[in-house]
């Protein structure tokens, strides 16, 4: 591997890891707050990507502006989904049944996408799709940089919301100990709904970022959910910083391993990391018991 190729792969890995970090943050949030395994997270991601594509197709305006609509929309949908679907599951079987429920939601979204926009692959054609800036011999694609920026901004915003607002404190309290949270007067049902909405809003941002640089098709979400699930387990279920760190590390690892191993085998790094985590540190590497606190 030449130095230039190493640097290029490293940068690509960080850019990809950023996107993974945002998406995994949403996924781990659901689990942290509600012990819900949200298989449909990546389906909503693709839905947001389609909405961005459709918005661009119709108006010709930059797809990033679709965020103005999709983020609040997804927030409301997430809130509704938690209050009217997920919260109806019996608490004792919530985690397992949520897999089934959100699996069904994912299939429904995939089917509807195919029904409305057919299975044809779609791609947003932007003036700057193939444009890149060169820094010290490394090409950084503008679209990837924008996607990374979006991811970083959203993660930062999420961090601030969770750390600095009273809602964030309520959410963390609900994550840590729902009963205690209720005892001190937190409306945990409402908080859980809002938390779900927040998670889904990150899918809206992630989907738009994804649409900038990827071809999209209805079944694409299956390719995302596996690595994302692996990331949140490695990072420690429920831990947002853990998910972000694991996403960055695994993104970079996948990118670098691609050079000697090729695309097929590089993908397995997510699952290998998952197996290793389950074997030697099932509570995750970066969260552990701390995961419960944030």
């Amino acid at each position, binding site marked *: 591997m030449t130095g230039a190729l190493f640097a*290029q792969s490293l940068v*690509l890995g960080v850019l990809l890891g950023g996107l993974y970090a945002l998406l995994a943050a949403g996924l781990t949030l659901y689990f942290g707050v509600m012990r819900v395994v949200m298989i449909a997270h990546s389906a909503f991601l693709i839905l947001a990507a389609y909405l961005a594509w459709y918005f661009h197709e119709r108006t010709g305006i930059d797809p990033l502006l679709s965020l103005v609509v999709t983020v609040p929309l997804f927030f409301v949908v997430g809130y509704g989904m938690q209050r009217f679907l997920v919260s109806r599951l019996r608490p004792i079987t919530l985690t397992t049944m949520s897999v089934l429920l959100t699996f069904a939601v994912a299939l429904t979204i995939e089917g509807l996408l195919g029904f409305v926009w057919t*299975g044809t692959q779609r791609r947003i*054609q932007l003036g700057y799709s193939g444009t890149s800036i060169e820094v010290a011999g490394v090409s950084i*694609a503008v679209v990837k940089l924008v996607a990374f920026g979006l991811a970083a901004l959203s993660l930062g915003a999420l961090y601030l919301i969770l750390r600095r607002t009273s809602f964030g404190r309520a959410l963390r309290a609900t994550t840590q100990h729902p009963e205690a949270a209720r005892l001190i007067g937190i409306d945990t049902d409402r908080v859980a709904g809002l938390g779900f909405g927040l998670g889904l809003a990150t899918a809206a941002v992630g989907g738009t970022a994804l649409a900038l640089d990827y071809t999209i098709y209805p079944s*694409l979400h299956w390719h995302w959910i596996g690595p994302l699930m692996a990331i949140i387990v490695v990072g420690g279920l429920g831990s947002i910083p853990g998910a972000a760190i694991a996403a960055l590390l695994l993104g970079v690892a996948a990118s670098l391993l691609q050079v000697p191993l*090729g*695309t097929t085998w590089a993908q397995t790094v997510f699952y290998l990391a998952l197996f290793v985590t389950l074997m030697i540190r099932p509570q995750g590497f970066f969260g552990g018991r701390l995961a419960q606190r944030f």
Partner: protein
Amino acid sequence: MRATRRLTVAAIAAASALSLSACLASPEQGGEAAGPDDPIVVGVSLPLTGDFAEPGKGVQRGYEAWAKHVNENGGLLGRQVELVIVDDQSNADRVASDYERLINQDGVDLVFGPFSTRLVVPAAQVAQDYGFLFVEPAGAAAEVFEQGFDNLFYAAPAIADDHYDHLAEYILALPEDERPKTIAVASMDDPFAQGTAYGLRDQLAEAGIEVLVDEVYPPNTTDFSGIAAKIADSKADLLIVGSQYQDGVNLVVALQQQDYQPQMAAISGAPTNAEFPAAIGDKTEGILAPTGYTPTAPYPSNQEFVEFYTAEHDAPPAEDEANAWTTGQVVAAAVEAVGCADPSPECQEQLIGWLKENEVETVVGPLSWDAQGRPQSAHLIQQYVDGEIKIVLPDDVKEADLVHPKPAW
């Protein structure tokens, strides 16, 4: 994962039950002789949903247009043609049981092939077991012809390995200083895409051109920046890509993002797709692609096909539609020559025998086959010249001169 496995088990069980009942039912059904006024029923299973849904629907449009055209022109042997098309969901287990059912239970007179190598092989096996003629529109990979089928004919100009023959010839005839010296190859892990790309790679490598990068990626790959980084780092003169569609688009964009500028870019699959220029933008200039079909090809029946199809669909046909139409033409030629179209082994045997001996005029040019069903021609080579995809090789049918080295993208 476990859910998928259970589903598969259930599907296999259901399929075996179906084929078993089909076997039991067949003796009663096969006896009826078709009258002269009954339609000729053609059975097809196509991937109308699932991974191959897009090309599958293209093949469906081609078959339906062909049947309509035949029926408007007096039918086959004076009988109308009726298509029975079922959906195999892009599933190789399904496609086999579909053909079992079509032949056994529905008692079709003829069968046409499905789309894609992965589905053609199991389908052809069933047809072979029942002695049926099997002309197929889309199974071009080498392995299709290595299964020992003697009933199979591929209704297109060339098998995957030969698609680039005209281009290989052109490159090797270039003067020493203009000829590319290094190659970077990337192909989807798919027998058809690999066959095409490796056909060119191997011919050039044999002539002493050095292969610097040789990457294979799984069909579901969406992130191509890593592969692009390797190719860009190699600075190879010639880029060879074996793609389906979206992978080709993503790889080209990723390469452009890393400012890789080859002298020549040969990409099979994606560029001949009508949506390719829209997906890539104005950066297609100079991209070369083999094609089994183009509406502008100057073969006699092609004009009729293009006119008929365009009137029906308000858009000219693409390769999938054309290969489906070709399949119809090939079977029709055999049926007209032999004078029968029924499921009896004698008739099917005569049809197979006739195709082994004869050449058929089709929309993709005259076709003839070797004993394993490989067509004996090569693909046209097209290139994006001044924003439009044009035939550049071979010389006798070209619409423009090949541009080499290609302009920067």
